């Protein structure tokens, strides 16, 4: 069954040997020592302050949608940092390695990264930024905010929610592991075919890439199912479809994309797995295989994935702009319609990723037209945000600054995207860094949306605002850095520079590469201000009110700040779109519930985190072809799932007295507060 490999294989360790550890590479050893030190400090601190039981009970085994969301975002931010460091290395390598006379250090002929390392770095950068930074952050925001915005107690499937998180984390852990054990893929985040096939990539790099994405895409699919079910079934009484906030609407549209698109990726990766492990010929060149099939499948997932990522920021801007313009959103209905139009058209544009692969002019023309159509609903969204600001009373807090920057980026990214969608232009800049600059504009919309959302909803989750002064420093340095990196990158694209170059063969490109390097240094400064912002906010903890910004419009600002673990003491009755604004107008916003009924809450469970750990072992076993390990891990997952089905724990009841106590002392119910152990029910009456 097993395909022939170049290197030795043993039943106990598979392909893993001591040589797989790159201990001779100073960069990796340094990174390892740094990561290990930080890890040890964290572990030591947890043990010293005896927080391990707390961590286990309140976080690792939690099914609370808000905690899961926070962990998603922490995971995303950690990976965002890793991806940023990759970007820093790429920029520095390119500016060092210009022209045949450029010197080299650390075993590289030019610059400091030989192609073997540079190619892994650029592949890791893309994979991490899209799948392990942007996706978890957006998933986390959806997790935290959607149930709050529709007045739900939790997600529809709290346990599945935790499984999604830990599967994504398992994928991220595999990518991090590839840094220290073995290697990562050199075939880009898209998995260039047939480059990712065995003859051209016999090492474990592609396997790392494949299994990391496979696990996390499973998690994302589950999360999409969960969000859809939550929105469809768990809305508070009176919350009709067209009273749902736009952020909830975009999470519905984005989750429909997630549910329908991610399985395509799963299939593509499974077929590639068969190619690489069983020697089949799905995507090989010869023996009837067809790598175009992979490219089509990948982008049938890949383009909807782009909209999967960018729709949530659209929802975020649609929440922030009205709040800080002190006006309702302009054109609510068309905003919703535009979100679904984008999601729908997103399905029919995938071939614009390969105009240069010899499709005929009619086919190229069709995909060009379909792509251009996306510009219409996107334009509508921009106009709607603009006319929300029109005749408003705008305050430029950090979330609003981020939102405005996001709209600028969207205009510029959209403009260059329209350029690229015309094959006549695409033939000149396809696979050049012009494309890189374009999609970084778009992905920066996601990053900017994430920063906006974190600043905006932070007080709701933690009870205090992020420090405004350092937040603004972070904003302006980040904005400046983005301009200084990506404007020259557009220029380099027009100079013809192609992407993924380890060695820059044309010395004419040097000046703009130096400009980009200046920009990346500015990004480093913005990272400093980000960390300082978090530190100062944690230190000062200026308490925020329930409606933290004073002009909130939607349901999440009605419950306590920080939000109690049961969300709403009494499920609210919804009367209007923008419920809080409606209550404020009618003088009802200060009214708090006085009588409480018991709440049925889900119990924590260790099964999801065990599944996550075993999924990681399964991935590791498959990557290194340690069959016993993969088999044992798979068996453990199956056993855990079956064992849980016999668990009679049906959650617990939060009594009315307890709720009354929490409502009078809200900090007792906050996210970080420790909850007493509760007696689980072994069955529940239908209710």
């Amino acid at each position, binding site marked *: 069954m097993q395909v022939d490999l170049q290197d030795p294989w043993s039943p106990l360790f598979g392909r893993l040997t001591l040589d797989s550890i790159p201990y001779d590479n100073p960069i990796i050893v340094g990174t390892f020592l740094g990561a290990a030190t930080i890890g040890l400090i964290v572990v030591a601190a947890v043990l010293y302050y005896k927080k391990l039981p707390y961590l286990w009970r309140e976080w690792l085994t939690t099914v609370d949608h808000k905690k899961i969301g926070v962990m998603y975002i922490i995971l995303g931010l950690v990976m965002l940092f890793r991806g940023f460091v990759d970007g820093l290395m790429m920029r520095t390598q390119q500016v060092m390695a210009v022209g045949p006379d450029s010197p080299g250090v650390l075993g590289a002929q030019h610059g400091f990264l030989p192609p073997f390392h540079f190619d892994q770095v650029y592949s890791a950068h893309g994979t991490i930024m899209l799948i392990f930074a942007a996706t978890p952050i957006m998933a986390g925001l959806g997790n935290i905010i959607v149930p709050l915005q529709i007045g739900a107690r939790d997600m529809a499937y709290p346990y599945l929610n935790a499984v999604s998180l830990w599967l994504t984390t398992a994928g991220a852990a595999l990518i991090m592991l590839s840094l220290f054990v073995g290697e990562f893929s050199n075939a880009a985040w898209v998995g260039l075919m047939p480059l990712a096939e065995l003859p051209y990539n016999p090492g474990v790099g592609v396997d790392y890439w494949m299994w990391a994405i496979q696990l996390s895409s499973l998690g994302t699919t589950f999360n999409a199912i969960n969000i859809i079910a939550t929105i469809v079934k768990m809305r508070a009484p009176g919350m009709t479809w067209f009273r749902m906030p736009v952020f909830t609407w975009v999470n519905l549209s984005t989750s429909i994309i997630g549910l329908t698109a991610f399985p395509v990726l799963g299939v593509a990766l499974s077929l590639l797995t068969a190619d690489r492990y069983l020697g089949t010929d799905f995507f090989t060149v010869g023996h009837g295989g067809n790598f175009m099939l992979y490219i089509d499948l990948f982008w049938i997932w890949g383009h909807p994935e782009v909209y999967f990522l960018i729709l949530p920021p659209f929802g975020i801007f649609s929440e922030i702009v009205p709040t800080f313009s002190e006006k309702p959103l302009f054109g609510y209905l068309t905003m919703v319609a535009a979100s679904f139009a984008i999601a729908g058209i997103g399905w029919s544009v995938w071939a614009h990723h390969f105009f240069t692969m010899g499709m005929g002019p009619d086919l190229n023309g069709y995909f060009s037209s379909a792509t251009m159509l996306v510009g219409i609903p996107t334009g509508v969204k921009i106009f709607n945000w603009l006319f929300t600001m029109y005749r408003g009373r705008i*305050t430029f807090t950090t979330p609003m600054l981020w939102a405005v920057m996001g709209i600028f980026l969207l205009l510029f990214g959209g403009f260059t995207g329209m350029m690229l969608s*015309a*094959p006549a232009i695409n033939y000149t800049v396809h696979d050049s860094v012009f494309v890189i600059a374009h999609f970084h504009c778009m992905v920066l919309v996601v990053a900017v949306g994430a920063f906006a959302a974190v600043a905006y909803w932070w007080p709701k989750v933690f009870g205090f605002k992020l420090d405004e002064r350092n937040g603004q420093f972070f904003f302006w340095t980040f904005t400046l850095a983005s*301009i200084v990196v990506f404007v020259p990158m557009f220029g380099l694209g027009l100079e013809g520079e192609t992407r993924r170059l380890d060695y820059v063969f044309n010395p004419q490109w040097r000046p703009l590469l130096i400009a980009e390097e200046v920009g990346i240094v500015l990004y480093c400064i913005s990272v400093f201000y980000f960390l300082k912002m978090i530190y100062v906010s944690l230190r000062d903890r200026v308490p925020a009110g329930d409606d933290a910004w004073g002009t909130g419009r939607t349901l999440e600002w009605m419950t306590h700040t920080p939000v109690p673990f049961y969300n709403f003491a009494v499920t609210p009755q919804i009367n209007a779109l923008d419920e809080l604004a409606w209550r404020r107008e009618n003088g009802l916003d200060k009214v708090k519930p006085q009588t409480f009924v018991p709440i049925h809450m889900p119990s924590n469970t260790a099964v999801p985190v065990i599944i996550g750990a075993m999924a990681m072992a399964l991935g590791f076993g498959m990557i290194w072809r340690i069959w016993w390990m993969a088999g044992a891990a798979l068996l453990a997952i199956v056993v855990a799932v079956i064992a849980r089905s016999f668990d009679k724990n049906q959650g617990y009841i939060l009594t009315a007295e307890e709720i009354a106590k929490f409502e009078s002392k809200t900090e007792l119910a906050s996210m970080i507060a420790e909850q007493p152990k509760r007696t689980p029910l072994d069955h529940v009456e239908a209710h």
Partner: protein
Amino acid sequence: MRFLRHFALCAPLLLLAGCSTVDFALFHPVGRVAEAEYHYTLLLVGVMMIVILPTFLLMVIFPLRYRKSRNATYTPNWSHSTVIEILAWGVPFAITAVLIHYSFVGVYAVNPYNPDALDGSPGSALPPIKVDVITTDWQWFFIYPDQHIATIDDLVVPVGRRVDLRLTSTSVMNGFYIPRVAPMVDAMPGMRTKDSFEVDQPGTFEGFSTDFSGAGFSWMQFSTRVVSQAEFDAWTKTVQANPKTLPYATFTQLAHPTVNFGAKPAYFSAPDPELFNKVVMDAMNGVVYPVPDSLTKSVSSNEGKALVPAPASP
């Protein structure tokens, strides 16, 4: 803080001020196809500007004008206007319709398989120069089936003649691209793609691979020399006289993974007349030129060492 803010807003201007257009290859197209590409770039960007520029202005004006501190008109409940909504959908719709029209015209004009831009060109009266392009890991083979010659990393074509390329690859995908001259088209193993161009002035233009193909990718360049018809004929004769030939067996030797640092050219006479088809068929039948892990790890340390057999000068 204030300085930072102003600097952030002015940075694009500073960057633009520092550039001249000389380095911008795409602003200096050569030949009808590249000129058509440039024409449609300007045309489409121009049409887009009709909506992009006013939107940009509104994006600057609204946030500044309706700041709370300015006490401008405030309508706390205004959230709908049928006229604006019709415009918000209608204007992008109209602009997109125009763009789609020009995109379709443009895609035919520069269609690499048969560009409309070359209709009626000086070269269209003459038979086209045929060149078969085969990429290996990581070199360019140019086969001239009519002239019975072949080169590595050196594409020589006469001025004012239409050049028709067929492209394929022995191993993985590569992108064929000469920024100022020819549209980007991928060379794919087991498949045949096409590209066409015609250059109306002599010169040397840089070409390279644009689609990542592995560890040697950064060194996959070739030069495109556009020469007069007489020079081309003389060059052809010199290469035809080269004792080094390129039968299929020799080609399969040279197709093994090799980095040609500095793109040093090599020349062959009498290439196998069926070379291109054999490469395509071999790939379809499962012939691969594997890249061992050890080579991927050590590619760049080979720089400076002669990996390629020393080329015979024509």
